[in-house]
């Protein structure tokens, strides 16, 4: 039987070669279908991984606590705003909880910052001296502020440092925020930024000690986000429940905070990713459907063009099944070549995207295998109709046809 199949394959190649342009055009449908699927998924996966990297900003033993409010301060990415329900009291209460090593609060403050240049409404974050212990981020120049530095110190994100001082390492320089002067103690290395991330862009942030903020405001600032670092050996998942329970109790039973265990992404970005995936699937379905219809058209034309040939083949003894198989093989070969070309082209396109754009597409191997498979199945299914038409032809009628 294998020899017959090889025979069919040869026949298919011959007839495809005989109508090169048309075969190429048809193949193009499949190629584009496969390419679009692989590339879009690769881009989506790249974005996903970038967001994932952002989540890895914090250590594996760090919980993120956020108030469940809809407000968002000026797109800063720190939730809460004026209606933030987390307070310093909550932070203190958590600090007393067993299993928790430390609690690092983040508070966003409003106001412009002036140094060599003036920057309106940057992200001013008041935090404690131990922020650097929960943040997986290296300092490029200087160091994070310590209690020894006093209260009037600041650490800058690299972008903001550049905007304020037009210098990458403005250590020891002074900046003014709400009438107070702060000495720059350090500059962070660039944070990985991702367009779809809902995390705050810390590259545009200035960090000041919590106590300094307290002095400026005259009261304890509202907390927009807290990092809770677990003691070594503590079950982080269990701890996240404890923290959640504690906060609910402290707020009189209202579940107005969410505790994100390590690795969990913001719920909104999850939804974005789901939508992205759905969009990809829809695009893939459309692209592959178009490719399939292309195959069907081509095969129908091919059958009509070769009615006489089909008649002859039947006259010399081809059964319906053999004619069917011949045309199916043709459709299959067309799809196979199209799928392979599509995979190769999409791999190279992804490579190009990586080199020449800021996107970081990641090839998902499962998709790179499944997409061409589905393309082939589509092609063969759509190839069935014309093949059946050919197989059921009456030999005499077909022979008479010129």
């Amino acid at each position: 039987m294998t020899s017959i199949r090889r025979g069919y394959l040869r026949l298919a190649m011959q007839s495809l070669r005989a109508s090169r342009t048309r075969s190429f055009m048809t193949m193009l449908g499949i190629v584009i279908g496969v390419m679009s699927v692989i590339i879009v998924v690769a881009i989506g996966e790249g974005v996903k991984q970038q967001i994932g990297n952002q989540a890895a900003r914090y250590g594996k033993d760090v919980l993120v606590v956020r108030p469940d409010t809809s407000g968002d301060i000026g797109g800063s990415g720190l939730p809460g705003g004026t209606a933030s329900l987390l307070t310093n009291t909550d932070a203190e209460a958590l600090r007393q909880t067993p299993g928790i090593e430390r609690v690092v609060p983040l508070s966003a403050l409003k106001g412009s910052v002036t140094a060599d240049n003036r920057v309106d409404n940057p992200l001013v974050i008041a935090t404690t001296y131990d922020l650097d212990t929960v943040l997986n981020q290296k300092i490029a120049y200087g160091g994070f502020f310590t209690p020894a530095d006093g209260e009037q110190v600041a650490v800058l994100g690299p972008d903001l440092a550049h905007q304020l001082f037009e210098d990458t390492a403005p250590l020891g320089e002074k900046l003014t925020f709400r009438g107070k002067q702060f000495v720059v103690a350090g500059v962070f290395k660039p944070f990985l930024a991702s367009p779809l991330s809902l995390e705050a862009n810390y590259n545009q942030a200035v960090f000041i000690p919590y106590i300094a903020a307290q002095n400026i405001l005259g009261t304890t600032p509202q907390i927009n986000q807290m990092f809770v670092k677990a003691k070594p050996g503590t079950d982080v998942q269990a701890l996240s429940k404890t923290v959640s329970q504690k906060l609910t109790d402290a707020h009189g039973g209202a579940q107005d905070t969410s505790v994100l265990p390590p690795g969990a992404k913001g719920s909104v970005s999850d939804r974005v990713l789901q939508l992205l995936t759905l969009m990809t699937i829809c695009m893939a379905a459309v692209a592959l459907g178009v490719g399939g219809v292309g195959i069907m058209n081509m095969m129908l034309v091919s059958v009509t063009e070769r009615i006489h040939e089909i008649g002859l083949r039947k006259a010399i003894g081809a059964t319906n099944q053999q004619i069917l198989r011949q045309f199916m093989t043709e459709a299959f070969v067309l799809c196979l070549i199209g799928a392979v070309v599509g995979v190769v082209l999409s791999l190279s396109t992804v490579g190009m995207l990586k080199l020449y754009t800021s996107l970081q597409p990641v090839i998902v191997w499962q998709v790179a295998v499944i997409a061409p498979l589905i393309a082939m199945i589509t092609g063969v299914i759509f190839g069935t109709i014309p093949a059946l038409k050919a197989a059921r032809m009456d030999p005499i009628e077909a022979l008479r046809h010129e």
Partner: protein
Amino acid sequence: MSLIELKDVSKLYGFGDATSVALDEVSLSIEKGECVAVMGPSGSGKSTLMNMIGLLDHPTHGDYLLAGKRVSRLSANRRARIRRDKIGFIFQSFNLLGRLTALENVALPLLYKGLPTSKRNSAARAMLERVGMHDRCYYYPRQLSGGQTQSVAIARALVNDPELIIADEPTGNLDTESSRLVMELLSEIHKAGNTVIFVTHNPELTRYATRVVYMQDGAVKYDEQTKLGEVGSYARNAMYKIPETTEEDDLAGVSVLMKVRPSETESPKKAPAKKPAKRTTRKKKRKAAA
């Protein structure tokens, strides 16, 4: 037991008032080893009869026994398999596939039989050698002359070692020289023991036949045994009754045919078969003369 046995076979097309009869209760039996020439005017049902015998078609009524087996009610696929194994077709328009080489064309029936490539090719090569085309194995049909093309087609018909060769006007598209070549080949095949049935308009070619069947209006009008090398008596009548054309007739063109008609109506028994035969013959003769 006859190789072919047709019993009151009819083939009707259309329904009701539009019904046309292509074959009208034809009964015919052909023995193994015969070489039958089928003659008759266009539309007399020759091709339908060939299709019927070649199992391309099935009768509306009647029975067909091939080698003692009733084949008139078989499914399309069963018929295809019998065609593949027992029948070789030769067509007027050669019907080689232009994309395939001579060798591949000849090997095609074996492909459907499921033979491996090497066996297919060696058998096809042997068959091409038999028809004297072994040096043209890798030529495409468009690179071959008409006679060569038909030789390749004959090789294809023979490659399955069929019991029956059906040739529908095998020389219809060929000049005299090529016709002779092709008929010699068919004759050799016949001498080797095959049963050959061929349709022709040329009475000269009945020399190659052992039996001549004349068809008209879907029925067998006349059926005679002849000796090899002899023109069938009926065909001879047709041939030699052609009136010589005068210069005047040449000027008149087609109307010379009209002149012949009245004499046909005088002898209604024999005449109808003459018409096409005459035409072809006259053309052939002229060609030969030129």
